[in-house]
């Protein structure tokens, strides 16, 4: 595996909070970043079928009005579709620049109405009929098809979507402090696993941890000119009123950051390229807002809520 390649591309993104920078990456840096939102949302309230009378008939009270001069009306995308006005500053400009697209009516034939079955079905990407291989996610198969171009999951656990024949490393960006075990100790531990089914995970874990820590230490320093710390960023977000719950302590902040990372699975390829180190402040509000919508459950929302 060309580990160095993905580490270098990862280094473009020293913190998940800088996700906004990714949009500005030049076209030559072909990458696929998959963010899987594990909650549910009302698609017809985000992507508004403005040409559909059925939509307006079905939602006499909560439909988003057709595009107009009022600030509460849908933002025009084309003659059939509009965007919820809350996205005016975030996703809408991306659409206008040709950097965002929407795929309506994408779904599965799974009629169980089970949230979990449907999630599994999407992550597995296999026909619903017949027996399914639960150890084969579609991103893993894609990675195999792309000749093993490096993929990585920024999650604590390897999600189903990334499980399969290609060994995909994972590392939550939160835990990238200096490795606790030195090289000798790591080698001795790895030797215990030699020839066992866990051997690959153990070796991969040590290698990724060490290399990420080394690469990111330099990157973080280079990228942190004028940037605020993660904690400062959180406080900044609170001041801007974008976080629904005030974290009571550092642990809570970590909890929230971790959850966000768990939602995002990324696969990336590409040449070594670094974005200029941008202060977090500039891109801070956008990911914060996304986070507020899908991260920590907001009161009266989340949990098992899905219909």
């Amino acid at each position, binding site marked *: 595996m060309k580990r160095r390649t993905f580490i270098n591309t990862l280094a473009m993104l020293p913190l998940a909070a800088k996700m906004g920078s990714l949009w500005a990456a030049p076209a030559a840096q072909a990458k696929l970043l998959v963010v899987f939102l594990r909650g549910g949302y009302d698609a017809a309230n985000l992507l508004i079928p403005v040409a559909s009378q059925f939509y307006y008939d079905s939602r006499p009270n909560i439909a988003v009005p057709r595009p107009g001069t009022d600030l509460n009306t849908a933002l025009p995308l084309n003659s059939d579709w509009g965007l919820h006005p809350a996205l005016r500053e975030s996703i809408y400009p991306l659409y206008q620049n040709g950097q965002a697209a929407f795929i309506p009516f994408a779904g599965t034939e799974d009629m169980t109405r089970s949230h979990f079955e449907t999630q599994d079905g999407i992550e597995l990407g296999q026909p619903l009929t017949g027996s399914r291989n639960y150890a084969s996610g579609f991103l893993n198969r894609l990675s195999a098809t792309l000749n093993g171009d490096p993929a990585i999951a920024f*999650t604590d656990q*390897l999600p189903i979507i990334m499980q399969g024949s290609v060994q995909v490393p994972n*590392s939550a960006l939160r835990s990238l402090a200096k490795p606790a075990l030195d090289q000798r100790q790591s080698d001795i*531990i790895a030797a215990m696993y030699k020839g066992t089914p*866990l051997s690959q995970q*153990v070796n991969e874990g040590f290698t990724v941890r060490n290399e990420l820590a080394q690469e990111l230490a330099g990157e973080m320093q280079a990228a942190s000119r004028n940037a605020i710390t993660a904690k400062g960023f959180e406080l900044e977000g609170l001041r801007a009123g974008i976080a629904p719950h005030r974290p009571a302590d550092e642990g809570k902040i970590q909890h929230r950051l971790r959850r966000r990372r768990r939602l995002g699975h990324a696969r990336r390829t590409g040449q070594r390229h670094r974005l200029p180190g941008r202060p977090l402040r500039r891109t801070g509000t956008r990911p914060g807002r996304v986070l507020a919508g899908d991260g*920590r459950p907001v009161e009266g929302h989340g949990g098992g809520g899905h219909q």
Partner: protein
Amino acid sequence: MPLPFSTTMLLTATALCTLGALITLTGCATTADTSSAGTAPPSAAQRQQQLNLLNRVSWGVNDSADRVIIAQGTERYLQQQLHPHDAPLPAALQAQIDAMTIVQTPMDQLNLKLEQQRKDADAVVDIEQKKTAQQAYQQELNRVAKEAATRSLLRDLYSTNQLQEQMTWFWLNHFNVHLYKSNLRVLVGDYEDQAIRPHALGKFRDLLSATVHHPAMLRYLDNEQNAAGHINENYARELMELHTLGVNGGYSQHDVQELARVLTGVGVNMGSTAPNVKRELQAQYVRRGLFEFNPNRHDYGAKDFLGQPIRARGLAEIDEAIDRLSRSPATAHFISRKLALYFVSDDPPPALVERMAQTFLKSDGDIAATLNTMFHAPEFNASLAQKFKDPLHYVVSSVRLAYDDKAILNAGPMLNWLNRMGEPLYGRQTPDGYALTQSAWASPGQMSTRFEIAKAIGSGSAGLFKTDGPQPLEKPAFPQLANALYYQSLQPGLGAATRAALEQAASPQEWNTYLLSSPEMMHR
């Protein structure tokens, strides 16, 4: 699944056949005699088998648990675990638990107090002061939730009723709720202690009913919003899909809708005032603590559920639905399979699941009886030491092995490790609960995290003996893992590679770290 330590496993496999045969031929009592008061001491292979079983049935081997199973013999140990009596914790630990707010204040009173705090905070006019007051409220919610998680861990670590504690977590995960929804942080401790734990080895029907009537569940799955004319199907769906019948359990969307109607009006009341109920329905109103059945919100129409009518009569309709769900063969199979997934294998043998389901049905959903069938199955014995530990099992078993009955002073480090590995208590957001399979946990990132935890425990630097508070008191406690238990019991079961690693340790700290990092420690 291939085994992490091949030479030992050959021995063990032989032992399995012997033990399995003994049980089938001669029955339980005889087996107990052979391993305890019997004349001949157990062979090395039998001893290894006993340790492996202890490791599976408990939260992890340690010296005191090992002494108990040696003294009682395997069979008597199993029966005691399946039918536990109250076993007090050591005094120092009981004192830790007794000092907790969640123990000293009943849930409904604690809730009232915190509701008042929340209202007071919201009513503060000054923005900065309001922020401070709201933060204090959130911190108090966090604190009581942390108490609940700490109590849970202390019981896992030190209770002699190890199976009951294992099953408490199993059912808590099965009937999952998430602490960060609404004010569930106030409710999770009571949910675990009052709804789950007393029934963890009892009748499934009682357990199911206790969860149906607990405010934590009714709030988590939105049933408090479920009313006649404003149906919310969430809970009804999960009750069948995740709690009882299973997704292919033979129910239809119509059944979901009908069960949702049965559940209308079942909710919570976090305040101190009762709702206005129509005069003719007032006799039907029920309030028990925070649980409330409000007949005004109930759909009193005729219903049919799973192919049979349900007579409209208010809250009692639920009992009828619970009966039907808990006695369905689909439930027997679904629950049996999940138990086998937890205790036997990521791919439970269908024949074993079938036998367990038969016991479940014959015993009217007796959980201990179902487990008894499983514990005596050759498939169970053949599976020992091969189930990959989820993070909670890894953390608890490591601390148990390191410190045995020495009481930790601070569970905070353990809670942090569980956070890092993605399995905090009450922390699963979705109602399906945490995965019980290796593929969900054995990722590269998780393995390296486990080794770091092994080092923290092994070197005594974890902070488990450092009290919280402004003037933390630390009693350094360096674990002695190279002890009698190790040399007499554990060492013979270790693979050659693990022994070779241990020989390279440059210090006792490193030796501990390697033992806790070994493949053997990752499995139960």
